[in-house]
């Protein structure tokens, strides 16, 4: 117990490491990684998500293929791909950017699905109405469809950010000193403090994730989209579109009677 208190008194090391003097490590690095990769991922996610519902077949299928391939690869494999592949192409990036790129690729694929689901959830009449007022498809998309879709997507984004934040703990494997690595280092330096170090690590992740899940729940309630308690399982069947499968295969499977 006194070990735990001693470690908790040391909270600054878990939070930022030796930041002003040394490199930024610890929980703040996790948050920085998650925020950076969700912002970069959002940019590409919108492009790929809109590409997946494009009316041109070659755009739709190629975007769908990219998204499905990334979604059915483990995050660890994506990280290793960029870790090994970037030096081969000739780009010698620092570890931090290597982690950011692989996490953003991962985030982009999942956010593309969220964007697609959000845009498809906007009623079809909105598009028709804006086309009939003389807008082009792009104008309609930017000024009518996307603002409504973003409102629908917001809770999913927050809960995805939660899961992405948890996934950032994975990058410790390629040698980034995040909260997980901090806890491991302390538990290796002082083997009798191992339990305290792990509890501190867990508390760090728990506080951030719990705050995020509370935020997601409040957003859902406030926007009245998906009330957590009256969640109807029929909606779960929409998850079918979230399975990592090419659209053609799905259509083949579903339409065959």
């Amino acid at each position, binding site marked *: 117990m006194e070990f735990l208190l001693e470690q908790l008194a040391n909270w600054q090391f878990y939070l930022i490491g030796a930041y002003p003097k040394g490199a930024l490590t610890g929980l703040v690095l996790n948050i920085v990684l998650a925020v950076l990769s969700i912002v970069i991922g959002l940019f590409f996610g919108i492009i790929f998500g809109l590409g997946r519902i494009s009316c041109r077949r070659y755009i739709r299928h190629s975007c769908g293929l990219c998204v*499905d*391939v990334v979604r*059915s*690869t*483990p*995050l*660890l*494999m994506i990280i*290793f*791909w960029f870790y*090994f*592949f970037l030096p*081969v*192409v*000739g780009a010698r990036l620092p570890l931090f950017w290597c982690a950011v790129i692989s996490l953003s690729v991962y985030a982009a694929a999942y956010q593309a699905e969220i964007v697609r689901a959000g845009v498809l959830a906007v009623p079809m009449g909105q598009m028709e109405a804006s086309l009939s007022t003389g807008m082009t498809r792009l104008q309609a998309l930017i000024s009518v469809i996307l603002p409504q879709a973003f409102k629908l997507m917001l809770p999913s984004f927050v809960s995805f950010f939660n899961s992405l934040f*948890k*996934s950032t*703990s*994975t990058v*410790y*494997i390629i040698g980034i000193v995040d909260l*997980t690595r901090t806890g*491991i280092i302390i*538990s290796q330096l002082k083997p009798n403090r*191992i*339990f305290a170090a*792990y509890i501190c*690590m*867990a508390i760090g*992740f*728990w506080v951030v*994730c*719990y705050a995020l*899940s509370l935020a997601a729940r409040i957003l859902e309630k406030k926007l009245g989209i998906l009330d957590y*308690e009256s*969640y*109807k*399982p*029929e909606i*779960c*069947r929409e*998850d*079918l579109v*979230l*399975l*990592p*499968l090419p659209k053609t*295969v*799905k259509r083949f*499977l*579903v339409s065959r009677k």
Partner: protein
Amino acid sequence: MKFLNLRYEFDWGIPFREPFLGWLITGVKLTLLIAAVTAVTSLLLGTLIAIMRVSRFKLLNIPAKIYVETVRNIPGLFWLLFFYFVFPQLLPFGLTDVLNQYSHYSIIAGILGLTVDNSAYVSDIVRTGIIGIPRGHIEAAVSTGLNRIQQVRYVILPEAFRTILPPLGTRMIHNFKNSSLCMAIATPELTWATQQVESITFRGLEVTFLATIFYIGLSMIMAMMIIRLERRWKIEITSITSMRE
């Protein structure tokens, strides 16, 4: 073989050379084993917790809620590390030594960690399924004279599992992908094997490529199986929804 002006000569013989081939095959077997075992155990544990969570007894309800909130808000990697490094030390003395000397403990730790991580998500999914069952069905079960356990066994769970099959399947695919995290605790599964080949030969791309193909292929096969299963059970689902109207 040289293309794209890469500074890398591909040597596709490497994955098929001993001892690397043996490692990769063991890795594939272990990945499949871990994914299958954790799918079953987390489904059992998750269902138990979901039933506890919807029960009216505070003694069952609150611990289940605490469990889910704790596990869901901590990364899966933490649970793997916890079960590998910390869990043996929490046990009474004799057991610690036994576990530390047991050479396959990393596999067991991987299974335990993934089970704990996945069971929280599974329990949330199962709970939404249970909540979504129309009140009339449970009343009908009561009026035919089923006791509480029989209601759960014959009415609630079969209906719940039909409706939640797609999200549950997605979760199991996630679990399969998460099994690659076991390499952090040196479980000799596929990802670990590719890293081992990389660290010995400095030729990681070929094996990583093959492993990625394996992961993508198997996830897609699992997704396809889930869609087939859903179609086979579809009649019951439509009848449930029509009765809810």
